[in-house]
């Protein structure tokens, strides 16, 4: 039995060596091809950009992912049209539009009077298109007796100044704070509009005990099982059967408004804002077609997919 097994081991050694050789070769080819393919991909991008004039689209960082998703999807339908999307902020985009360096400016706020006058001085009327709505629902577990909160109360809760539900009319239980990760645009919007109550010089930030969830689903599933948790999420993500949306008032004197596509669209819900695109004068040709597509069913589906509120259907 012993000799039998040694003979076999010998045979095995050769097989193993060849196997090793093959594996090494595979590894090497893998490395080489991965290097090569990444180079060609980069080259293709450069080629496309220089081959034809792209629609220049610049502005708000809140919209940049949405604009990129639109540009990518649109390119699948119209491979001949390329759209260059850059961020930089709403102000940057509007300034570029006034200076004539972009075709479409993205803005998460409306143009100021002064900006409209500058545009007119440069010889055109800026045309505004509302392309999506950004509304955040504040959600709690359905068992939570609290139904409504004001923005200052929310600010106190999320900065850790209020830590017990009974201080805002709920049970005697510790509040569990949920937020998206700080790299999310939603996080920043909630920080600016709720935690800092829209005040520019306010430097409050989320309490350190805030649980940062890597995804929207992370927030909703914790809300569903934790009666003491509070979080926020894009209206599109909320499932009203398992999560309760709070009615929000701007301050103690204002009415409490429940978030919905309607209250988001008409601006009465305080944690919502329109997202806009501006063109220099009435758009024509490919730009007009692109804007029509964005505001149509396909474009608005992408709005919903990315967690924004789609425009009310006409």
């Amino acid at each position, binding site marked *: 039995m012993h000799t039998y097994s040694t003979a076999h081991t010998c045979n095995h050694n050769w097989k193993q*060596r060849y196997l090793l050789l093959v594996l090494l070769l595979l590894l090497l080819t893998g490395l080489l091809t991965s290097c090569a393919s990444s180079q060609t991909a980069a080259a293709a991008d450069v080629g496309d950009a220089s081959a034809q004039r792209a629609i220049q689209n610049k502005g708000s960082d809140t919209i940049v992912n949405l604009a990129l998703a639109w540009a990518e999807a649109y390119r699948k339908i119209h491979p001949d049209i390329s759209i260059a999307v850059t961020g930089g902020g709403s102000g940057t985009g509007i300034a570029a539009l006034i200076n004539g360096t972009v075709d479409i400016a993205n803005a998460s706020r409306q143009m100021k009077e002064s900006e409209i006058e500058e545009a007119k001085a440069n010889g055109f009327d800026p045309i505004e298109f509302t392309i999506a709505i950004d509304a955040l629902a504040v959600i709690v577990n359905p068992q939570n007796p609290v139904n409504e909160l004001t923005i200052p109360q929310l600010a106190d809760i999320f900065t850790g100044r209020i830590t017990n539900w009974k201080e805002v009319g709920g049970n005697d239980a510790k509040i569990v704070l949920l937020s998206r990760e700080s*790299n999310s645009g939603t996080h920043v919007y909630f920080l600016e509009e709720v935690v800092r109550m829209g005040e520019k010089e306010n*430097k409050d930030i989320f309490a*350190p005990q805030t*649980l*940062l969830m890597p995804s929207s689903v992370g927030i909703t599933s*914790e809300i569903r*099982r934790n009666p*003491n948790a509070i979080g926020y999420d894009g209206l599109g993500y909320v499932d009203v059967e398992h999560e309760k949306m709070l009615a929000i008032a701007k301050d103690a004197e204002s009415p409490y408004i429940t978030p919905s596509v309607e209250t988001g669209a008409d601006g009465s819900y305080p944690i919502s804002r329109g997202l806009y695109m501006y063109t220099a004068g009435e758009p024509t040709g490919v730009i007009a077609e692109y804007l029509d597509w964005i505001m149509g069913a396909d474009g608005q589906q992408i709005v919903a997919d990315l967690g924004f509120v789609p425009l009310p259907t006409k």
Partner: protein
Amino acid sequence: MIVNMEQSAPTVAPKRKPVPRHWGEWVIENLIQLAGVSTLIIIGLIFAFLLREGLPAFFEISPATLLGVRWYPIEEMYGLLPLLAGSFIVTIGAVVIALPLGLTTAIYLGEVAPRWQRELLKPLIEMLAGIPSIVLGFLGWVVLAPLIQKAGAPTGLTAFTGSLILAYMSLPTIISISEDALYAVPKEYRDGALAIGATKWQTIWRVVVPAARSGIVIAIMLGIGRAIGETMAVMMVTGNAANIPALGIGMFFQPVRTMTATIAAEMGEVAKGSLHYSTLFAIGIVLFLITFSINSIAGRLVGSQGSRRSGGQL
């Protein structure tokens, strides 16, 4: 004359070289050598890359900021203490859970279990090591977290939840290495102990385990190494709140944010070359140094145990 000699020398030299018996053997030997050397080169490159990307953070961010208690990169708060605390709390918890379980399993397998049980259990335990960490993370998220919340914690996403998952993940390492260490204890030790009238329990606890001490320490070290570097499972169940909990038993039942989860959660969206980007690499350097020192301490212990084993047993 001199020229002649020089010319003749190279023609003679190849003849003296031993001609390889098989060209295939020569190729394989060299490829194996290349594979061995390439590992070293790759480790060197990884470290160089980490340093290149991460070192700027140590120069550009003041030590006071790095040692701060808040991690909130969008406001340029780069305090690493909460992340270090998070990683350590989760890891310590994991070791405290895994050590008694792992050690008793190893003792049972090595000293008590009949042969057939041993043959059955060992491969099963090794199979544990093959379960993808994301699957364990998912189990922790769906099953463990609700249980821990029902047990009275404000939320189920706590350091303890992470520790349980990590303990489970480091068990195979701890069991198989400490079982090897027990196995290496010379039979004469057991015989001697039993001969002077010790019970089986006394033999195991007073003689065999102390003799295998250094191997068990290595098992713990490698278990720690496995636990501190784990990312996905931990990110799913620890809540990711960059908070420094108050010292005490309660700190295990609060959400924490580990270094690995921070890198994984934030790397995707960060601008390349920014301060935030290099800080994430700086966290990588810190992690690398921690695991490197744990592994080298374990390596040193393995060395000393190896020499003792050969002296004692053979």
